[in-house]
Each structure stands twice: as structure tokens, then as C-alpha cells.
């Protein structure tokens, strides 16, 4: 079955092709589109499950499935289109096809009345194809196909409702921010090939250990350029700005691409090339610090957002920061653990939000209200109309806040523990830990604020729309229930010793990062007394945040957006997201526009090339022609004189 892993890629590819064909020929054949779109995901999940089962029983930890010789460039460089099936990619395979499949199912309900239904499923299937290529790729170029492909699908899906200008602009922004990161990955690839002569992940791991010394410049450069790619794809400082705008896409897309799978590609890439990072301790510190800072700053912005999806978007940026903090402290398994649990609870949160938006949209639509169905100030008291969604989102909120025994608690606690433990080696990690803990407190706060604003209190959307509020159909709540079960039980896959578990995921992933871990000192042990204190601190932070968020939100009077007062002081700063977009606009967009318009277009192209170059040549020819035409003045006598003079001159040269 492992040799047949390409089937997992082929099924969604078939789905994408068929759905694309349907989008052109039969856009209204929604039943066929649903069956194909969800069916291929079920098939892919079955393949993933079979591969995982076989790998579990296999004594070999890593298989390479070569499909064909892709680029036989030279004797030194020959790239195969090959898939690497190992413990890491098999887990990712399960998460992507599993969570992806559930989101496909949810989309059947959510997108039911959309005219672009077939096109939507074609994009969604295509995204899965590229995501699977990304995680399965056995070499950087193969993974890069997926890396670029998911970026493309992300662009297509963010701008899915392209009739609205803002949506297509958000798509472009995402694509451009990602391109900056992709440039980093490309440079890293060139450097690796130049220095090591191989691009296979196993080759990089082996050759890197053999040819690079720890702490030298080359692995540092490679790691930093790779990390630049990760900051783009995984929305870290400084390239995170595209992710909140990506919420312009349909909500299930936000769940699948901008929360559960694509944005975690950066974390995955760091783990895949872990050996490079452990050879460059400075790069690891950069990863950890950037992760912690992102976790902290994104969480602060999340405190003062009103759009339900924007809160979740900043929460995603913040949680991705945690993952990088994890891998930056060489707790690779913890990073992947948080990636998986986050995929569960963030998909649940986004789909729950989608369910809320769906209900709000219909209710407001029936009441002919033009209020924003995503603004939480228009919601309130929805728990009575939508008990299922409320309960399921409540579970996800407890999980992301880090309340035991939900999945998020264990993964977040492990990352914070690893950061604290590394603190004895370098004090910067204590700072990272403190930032992470503060972010955990704020996460709990803004999540409980979200739930309180949405589900508690009085409905603020107007009386006329209140009676139209209804629970989502089963095809939407069904996937939510499954995700909720995973959210509750997800922690089991890496249950730590103190909770009576055996850290299964850590042992499972050990072979993947084995070589990398040989380059670094093992994570120092935390004394068990200290460990208990840390856990207690984390729980206190979570509970304080949750209670604080609930109490402060329900006590304050929430007014609908049109009556909302001006934000003041620090709140204004947070509400406007630290004006980062505006600063980027001034520092990057405006100069680029100036360079393009003034310098390159008006000066170089219009003036230098058009006026001087092209126009100048024409005028030169015209002038010379005018001079020549003066000779033809119509006076025969003049011609004859010229002729005579010419004849005399010729005779003079002939007769010497």
C-alpha cells in the first residue's frame, strides 16, 4: 500500500479535474459535484489510513516512492518525482485528508446556494492535491511544487467571490506576501545544491551533517532563507499581514487553508529540514523568538477585533507562533503535536463560526437588513437558536484556551515547557516562555469574549431577523461533531507521562528528527516540582482569561457597529492592528508604486525608451531624409551641375 501512496494524490486530482469540467459544462449539477468532491476525499483518507497502518507495522521508518525521473540535469543533480512516506508525512497525510474531508462535507451545506459551487469544489480538491504533494515530497523541488500550488489555490479561494474588489485584492495580497517567502525557499534551495549537491530531504540531512559544522555560516544562511519562506506561508512576523485579509474567502476555506493545513506548511518544512536548523543554533533562536513575538502580538490584536473571523484569524497567527516557538526550541514533536490539535480545534472554531455566519446571513437577509453578518456586535444570545453550534464551539474554545483535558492544553503546555527548559541554556528562551504564557492568557480572554459576544446576552441583530435564526443542517453540524470528538480526545496521541500517557507522537516522530537531534543538546529536564508549577500557571492563565473575558464582555454594554463609539487609546491601537498595514503601505507599497509609476513607467519607459529611443530614431531618420530631399529641388540645371561635378570627380580618381 505504501508504494500506492500516489493514489492519495490522484483521487483529489481526479476530483479537481471532474469538478472543473462540471464547472464549465454543468455548473448546476450540485449533487454530482458533492459526490465527486467529498467522495475523492473519503477515498484519499482511506489510502492515508492504509498507508499509516502499514507503516505502523513496518520495521522500516521511511520509504521513498519514485514515480518517475523528473529532472536528470547533470550527473550530480538528478531530481526524481518521488514521495517520501515516513512517520511525519503519514501523520500529515491523515490530518490533511481527514480534516480536509470533514471540511469538504461541511462545504456541501455552507456553499449549497452559491452559483460557483462546482468551481469551489474544483479549487478545494486541487488544494488537497498540492498540500499532499507538499507533505509527501521527498525532495525540496517536489515539495516546492506543492508549496507553490497551495499558494495558488489559496489565492483562487480567497478571491473566490471576485466580484467584490476587496476580495480579489485580499487574494493578491496573500499571493504577493507568499511570493516573498517563496523567494527565500528558492534561494535556500540554490544554496543547498551549491553547497551539498543534493536536494533530497534525506540527502540534505546526511550531507549537511557531514559537510557543515555546527554554527557555521552556510547552514545559518540556508535555515534563515527557509524560515523566510515559512514566515510567508505560515503567517509569521513580518509577513503575517496577508492571513487576516484572507478571511475574505468562504469560511470553510478559512478553516481548511488558513487555519488547519496550508498555514502549517512552514512548521512542517522546519521539521522536515530540522537537521539544517539544528546545525544553526542562531537560526533556531530566531525561529523561537519570531514565533513567540508573533504569538504575543497577534493575540493582543485579537483582543479588540469585532469580526468573528478576524478574531479567529489573529488567533491562528498566534497559534502558529506557538508552533514555531515549539520547533525553535527543538521540541519538533511538540510543534507537530500542536499543529495537529490546532488543526482540529481551529477547524472546529472556523466551521462553527461559518455556521454562525450562515445563520446570521440568512436571518439578516430575510429581515432585509444590511448589517454585517460577521460582526459580533450584531450577534448575541445565539445559544438559544443554535445549541449545537454553541456547545461545539464552547468545546473548541476550552481547547484553544488550554483547559485540561482538551487537546490544546497538552500541546500548548509542552511547547511552553520546552521553552522554559531551554531557558537554562539561554535566557532569551525565558522571554519566549513569558511571551507565550501571556499569549495563552490573552488567547483565553479573546476566545471567551468571542463566545460571550456571540452566544450570550441579548440578540442585537434586530427583532425582525431574530425569528429567522436557525441551527445549521446536519451536513454542517455532523463534521463539527466529529471535529469536537477529535478536539476532546486529540491530546491522547501525545499524552505526557505526568498524565499517565506514553507520549506516543514523540516516539513516533523520533526517527524523523533523529539526525537533527544529534546536533543539539537534549532538552534539559525540568524538576517535577517546577513542572507542576508551570502546569498550574498555564491552567491559571487559561481560567483567568476565560472568566475575565466572559465577565468583562457580559458586563460591558455592547452596541451595534453603527452606534459604536470611537476606539480610544491602546484599544484604538489594537483595533487598528498596530497600523501595520498602513506602515507597510507607506514603506513598501507606496515606494514600489512610485518606482513603477514615476521612475520605471514615466521616466524609463515613456520618456527614455519611447521619446528618446523610439521617437528619437524616427526623428533622426526624418531629419536626414529632409536634408537629402533638399538636393531634389526640381531645377534641372542644378542636377546637371551636380552630375558634371560628380563626373569630373570620378574622372579625377580614375585618371591619375
Amino acid at each position, binding site marked *: 500500500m505504501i508504494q500506492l501512496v500516489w493514489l492519495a494524490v490522484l483521487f483529489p486530482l481526479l476530483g479537481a479535474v471532474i469538478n472543473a469540467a462540471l464547472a464549465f459544462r454543468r455548473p448546476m449539477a450540485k449533487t454530482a459535484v458533492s459526490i465527486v468532491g467529498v467522495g475523492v476525499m473519503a477515498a484519499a483518507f482511506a489510502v492515508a489510513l492504509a498507508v499509516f497502518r502499514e507503516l505502523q507495522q513496518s520495521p522500516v521508518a521511511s520509504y521513498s516512492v519514485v514515480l518517475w525521473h523528473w529532472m536528470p540535469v547533470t550527473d550530480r543533480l538528478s531530481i526524481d518525482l518521488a514521495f517520501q512516506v515516513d512517520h511525519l508525512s503519514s501523520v500529515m497525510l491523515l490530518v490533511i485528508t481527514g480534516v480536509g474531508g470533514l471540511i469538504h462535507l461541511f462545504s456541501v451545506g455552507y456553499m449549497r446556494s452559491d452559483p460557483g459551487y462546482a468551481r469551489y469544489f474544483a479549487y478545494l480538491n486541487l488544494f488537497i492535491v498540492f498540500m499532499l504533494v507538499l507533505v509527501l515530497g521527498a525532495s525540496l523541488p517536489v515539495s516546492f511544487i506543492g508549496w507553490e500550488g497551495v499558494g495558488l489555490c489559496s489565492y483562487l479561494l480567497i478571491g473566490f467571490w471576485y466580484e467584490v474588489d476587496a476580495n480579489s485584492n485580499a487574494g493578491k495580497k496573500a499571493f504577493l506576501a507568499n511570493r516573498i517567502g517563496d523567494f527565500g525557499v528558492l534561494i535556500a534551495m540554490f544554496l543547498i545544491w551549491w553547497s551539498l549537491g543534493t536536494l533530497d530531504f534525506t540527502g540534505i540531512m546526511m550531507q549537511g551533517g557531514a559537510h557543515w559544522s555546527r554554527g557555521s555560516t552556510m547552514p545559518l544562511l540556508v535555515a534563515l532563507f527557509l524560515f523566510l519562506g515559512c514566515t510567508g506561508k505560515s503567517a509569521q512576523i513580518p509577513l503575517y499581514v496577508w492571513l487576516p485579509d484572507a478571511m475574505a474567502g468562504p469560511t470553510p476555506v478559512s478553516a481548511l487553508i488558513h487555519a488547519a493545513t496550508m498555514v502549517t506548511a512552514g512548521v512542517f518544512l522546519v521539521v522536515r529540514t530540522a537537521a539544517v536548523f539544528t546545525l544553526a543554533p542562531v537560526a533556531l533562536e530566531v525561529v523561537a523568538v519570531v514565533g513567540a513575538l508573533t504569538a504575543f502580538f497577534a493575540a493582543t490584536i485579537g483582543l479588540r477585533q469585532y469580526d468573528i473571523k478576524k478574531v479567529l484569524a489573529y488567533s491562528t497567527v498566534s497559534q502558529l507562533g506557538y508552533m514555531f516557538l515549539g520547533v525553535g526550541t527543538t521540541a519538533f514533536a511538540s510543534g507537530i503535536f500542536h499543529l495537529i490539535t490546532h488543526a482540529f480545534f481551529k477547524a472546529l472554531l472556523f466551521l462553527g463560526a461559518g455556521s454562525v455566519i450562515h445563520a446570521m446571513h440568512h436571518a439578516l437577509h430575510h429581515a432585509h437588513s444590511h448589517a454585517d453578518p460577521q460582526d459580533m456586535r450584531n450577534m448575541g444570545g445565539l445559544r438559544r437558536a443554535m445549541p449545537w453550534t454553541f456547545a461545539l464551539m464552547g468545546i473548541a474554545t476550552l481547547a484553544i484556551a488550554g483547559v485540561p483535558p482538551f487537546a490544546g492544553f497538552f500541546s500548548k503546555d509542552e511547547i511552553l515547557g520546552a521553552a522554559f527548559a531551554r531557558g537554562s541554556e539561554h535566557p532569551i528562551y525565558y522571554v519566549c516562555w513569558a511571551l507565550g504564557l501571556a499569549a495563552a492568557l490573552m488567547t483565553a480572554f479573546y476566545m471567551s469574549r468571542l463566545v460571550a459576544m456571540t452566544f450570550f446576552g441579548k440578540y442585537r441583530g434586530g427583532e425582525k431577523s431574530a425569528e429567522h435564526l436557525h441551527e445549521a443542517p446536519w451536513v454542517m453540524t455532523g463534521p463539527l461533531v466529529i471535529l469536537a470528538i477529535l478536539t476532546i480526545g486529540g491530546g491522547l496521541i501525545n499524552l505526557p507521562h505526568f498524565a499517565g500517557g506514553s507520549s506516543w507522537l514523540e516516539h513516533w516522530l523520533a526517527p524523523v528528527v533523529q539526525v537533527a537531534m544529534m546536533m543539539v543538546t537534549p532538552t534539559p529536564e525540568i524538576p517535577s516540582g517546577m513542572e507542576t508549577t508551570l502546569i498550574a500557571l498555564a491552567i491559571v492563565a487559561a481560567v483567568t482569561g476565560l472568566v475575565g473575558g466572559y465577565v468583562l464582555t457580559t458586563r460591558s454594554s455592547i452596541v451595534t457597529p453603527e452606534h459604536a463609539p470611537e476606539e480610544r487609546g491602546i484599544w484604538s491601537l489594537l483595533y487598528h492592528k498596530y497600523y501595520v498595514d498602513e506602515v507597510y503601505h507607506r514603506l513598501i507599497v507606496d515606494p514600489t508604486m512610485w518606482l513603477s509609476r514615476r521612475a520605471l513607467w514615466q521616466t524609463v519607459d515613456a520618456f527614455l525608451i519611447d521619446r528618446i529611443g523610439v521617437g528619437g530614431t524616427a526623428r533622426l531618420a526624418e531629419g536626414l531624409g529632409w536634408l*537629402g*530631399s*533638399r*538636393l*531634389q*529641388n*526640381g*531645377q*534641372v*540645371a542644378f542636377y*546637371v*551641375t551636380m552630375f*558634371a561635378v560628380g563626373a569630373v570627380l570620378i574622372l579625377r580618381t580614375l585618371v591619375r
Partner: protein
Amino acid sequence: MDTRLLLGPTLVVSAILFVLGVAGVLVRRNAIVVFMCVELMLNAVNLTFIAFAQLHGVSGQIMVFFVMTVAAAEAAVGLAIILAIFRHTQSVDLAHINLLKG
């Protein structure tokens, strides 16, 4: 008398005739006079041909017949053109015939 002794004076006469022709073409504005000057140049050349034919055989004399034939044809065509121009412009002054110019 040795005809070769006459070569030098003949060529001098021919050159004088030719230069007269050239000068006439260059300075006169009457189309018919210019035309006659062209004929003068042709005949100067004919004279040269004849003179050299005494040394190099009859090919020069044959050439003269060609030149005379062409000159006759040219005279016919040229005079016809001048007539046509005169009908059109009531003038044979070359300075006035200047419609073709850049």
C-alpha cells in the same frame, strides 16, 4: 600624310566641342538650346571615336553609327517631350519646369 599626326589636333577639337556642349547644358535655360548642346557633346564624342578608329580599326566607326542612331531617336523623343511641355506651360524655360522636387 600620316593620319596619326592628326590625332592630337582632332582630339583637341573634340574636347573643345565637348566642353562647349557641357557649358551650354550648364548655363542655358532654354530647353531646346540645352538639347542642342547635348547633341554637340554627342558629336564631340563621335569625333573622338573616328579619330581613334584610325589607330584601332573600324569598331570605333561602327560605334559612331550607333551613337547617331540613338541621337536621332533621342532627338525625336526629346523634342516631342519639349513640345508637350510647351503646350502645357507655354514655356521652354527649364527654371520653370520644376514640379518634381522633394
